[in-house]
């Protein structure tokens, strides 16, 4: 009887001890929050190395893009402890810094000898700094991204189409260098029969609900002379946001939408745009660079059939809309020490090289400036070229209000045909002025 009792006690102790040990292990698990997309899967794969090295487990909270901002900004605003690490959108940085959602990383970077000079400058300004262009760092550049274009290389190389195009427009059918050329290509392919199927010119961003049409139209606006404010006087927008040149840029985007997009393209963002390309509907496809690895691997439209090019130049400049994000430590997390360990590990050159190899876009100079980098993937040189010309939307704490105003004004004009381009931009200036006045900045 005694031995049975001892055995039972021993077993109970063993079970208790093992449970306690596993609880300790779980207590150290870090939760990383990000959008649900291809690079997130690559990060899961990459993070296995971190767990191997440190014994710290990784959990992931990925939310689809359409709910990404709502979900995680709610989480941060309510001081939630769900996320220990967050890969937040570049425009959140101002609000997250001013409202104390992110841990300031300057001291940590100094201590661990992580230098922001080692990262692509545009990504440091875009993803890490607040206020912009000051050495106050709230994130480590994690995922470089930029809007660019893909095209159907196989269609472009059809001799009969090349001949017809040359006769019609007087130049060789190929990746466009200017917006006029892009329009001509889109017009040429619109409603054309290729391999027995009706195809269309271009798929561009037109989404209304979150940020889609803004992320699309800004590519053209920047190149036509749009600026967010007077470079010499902050928040002075009159004549910069609504200049005659900017209005011409907006008119161009509407013309492209009206003439050359597939039917029913009034609410297109990343997913829908990629789908239009993957299903063989369009000759040109605007999207963030993160979609390129997946499209290149696609059996139907990838490989030799796909080509990549950077945003074309406009009459007043050559820019591309910045995407991408930095990784931050959430100030409400109880596991900040472990979270910082992850950031230190992630900043490592070998880890960054593997990150690129797995499908993530590294922002580390040592990776992207490697002589082998441009030939490492078919889209690598286009990515580099695009990252050199980036410009970003407001990153002010009121970015969401500013964004919604732009979504409304631009969508009303481009898709719903309301008013003129000039009226749309004039209204935008009024909306933005009101927002900055509410914030006490004007």
């Amino acid at each position: 009887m005694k031995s049975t009792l001892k055995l039972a006690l021993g077993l109970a102790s063993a079970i208790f001890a093992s449970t306690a040990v596993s609880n300790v292990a779980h207590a150290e698990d870090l939760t990383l929050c990000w959008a649900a997309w291809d690079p997130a899967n690559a990060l899961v794969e990459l993070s296995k190395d971190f767990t191997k090295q440190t014994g710290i487990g990784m959990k992931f909270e990925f939310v689809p893009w359409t709910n990404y901002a709502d979900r995680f900004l709610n989480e941060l605003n309510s001081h939630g402890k769900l996320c220990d690490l967050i890969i937040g959108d570049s425009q959140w940085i101002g609000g997250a810094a001013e409202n104390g959602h992110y841990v300031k990383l300057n001291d940590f970077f100094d201590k661990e000898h992580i230098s922001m000079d080692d990262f692509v400058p545009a990504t440091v300004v875009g993803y890490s700094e607040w206020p912009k262009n000051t050495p106050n760092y709230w994130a480590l550049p994690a995922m470089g991204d930029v809007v660019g274009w893909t095209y159907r290389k196989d269609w472009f190389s059809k001799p009969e189409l090349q001949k017809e195009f040359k006769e019609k427009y007087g130049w060789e059918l190929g990746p466009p260098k200017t917006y006029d050329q892009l329009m001509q290509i889109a017009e040429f392919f619109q409603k054309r029969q290729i391999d027995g199927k009706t195809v269309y010119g271009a798929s561009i961003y037109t989404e209304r609900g979150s940020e889609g049409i803004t992320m699309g139209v800004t590519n053209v606006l920047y190149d036509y002379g749009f600026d967010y404010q007077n470079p010499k006087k902050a928040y002075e927008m009159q004549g910069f946001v609504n200049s005659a040149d900017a209005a011409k840029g907006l008119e161009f985007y509407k013309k492209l939408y009206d003439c050359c997009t597939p039917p029913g393209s009034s609410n297109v963002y990343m997913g829908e745009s990629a789908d239009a390309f993957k299903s063989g509907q369009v000759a040109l496809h605007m999207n963030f660079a993160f979609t390129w690895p997946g499209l290149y691997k696609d059996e139907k439209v990838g490989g030799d059939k796909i080509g990549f090019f950077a945003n074309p130049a406009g009459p007043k400049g050559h820019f591309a809309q910045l995407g991408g994000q930095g990784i931050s430590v959430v100030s409400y997390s109880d596991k900040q020490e472990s979270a910082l360990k992850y950031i230190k590990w992630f900043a490592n050159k070998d880890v960054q090289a593997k990150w690129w190899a797995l499908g993530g876009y590294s922002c580390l100079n040592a990776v992207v400036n490697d002589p082998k980098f441009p030939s490492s993937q078919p889209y690598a040189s286009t990515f580099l070229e695009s990252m050199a010309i980036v410009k970003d939307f407001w990153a002010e704490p009121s970015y969401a209000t500013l964004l919604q105003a732009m979504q409304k004004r631009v969508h009303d004009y481009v898709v719903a045909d309301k008013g003129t381009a000039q009226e749309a931009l004039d209204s935008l200036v009024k909306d933005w002025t009101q927002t900055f006045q509410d914030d006490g900045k004007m």
Partner: protein
Amino acid sequence: MLDRTADNVARATPEPLAKKIRGISDKGLAWLFISPTILLLLAINIFPLFWAIYLSFTNYRANRPNEVVKNLGLANYQRILGDQDIWIAMQTTAHFVFWTILLQTVIGFTLAWLIDRKFRGHAFWTTVILVPMMLSPAVVGNFWRFLYEPQIGLFSYVVSFVTGIPPTNVQMLSNVELAPWSIIIVDTWMWTPYVMLICLAGLRSIPEYIYEAAEVDRASNWRQFWSITLPMALPFIMLAVLFRGIENFKMFDMVNLLTGGGPGSTTEVASITLKRQAFESWRTGYSSAFAIILFVAVFGLANIYVKALNKVKQR
């Protein structure tokens, strides 16, 4: 026998407990039972309402908890009532409410009248007609989005077949003229059965002897319909209109799923504007003021309507 049992129970009850039970009056006992419900109601309905009223006079933003909250007086209300975009959203809402109610009432009453004929298989057809309202709005919104798809949608092909217009030109959700109608069609499809059910209850409540008396008086079918059926079913029809009116005034799910308020702001009803201001622009004080204005508008209109309904019932 029963009195004796009660006496026995009373005598057997320990004195302190008996005192306690005797101490609670019937009214007290009633309050005791309903107090959990009242507390719950206060916590999840009344308190948020008063809190929203308070916030509507401030510049509070839920995404900036550390900022000082300033009292703005009536500034939020003034700004909303002077905002042209808000009035456009209200017009869109009114357009949507008017047409959905009109169509649902006409079709719903017609269906109820037909079902009330009790033809062979009417029970089966009643069930079939009720199916749309049993579905989740999320499911309905998503599958109608596919049906409206210009390149693969069945709806576009049916319209194309009937009218000869190429299906890719039938762009229900992206065309400024058609987008509001695309939502009206889906809402009518989904909620006409609900109106039909209420109307059917009204038709079935009309006593048969009234029709028999009308037959004796040689009243025609048309005369019977105008003098008996419609007046006696009218309170039920009005009730259905009230329910649908309130629901459609705050319609959100279907619009959000089908068009998201677009193209542009063509289908941006008041609830979509409210959601954008509250949870995308994070203007909590401003959106609280807008919510209060909407609440007062619905409450006021519903009250006027209920008075009219009572008058009709009294006739």
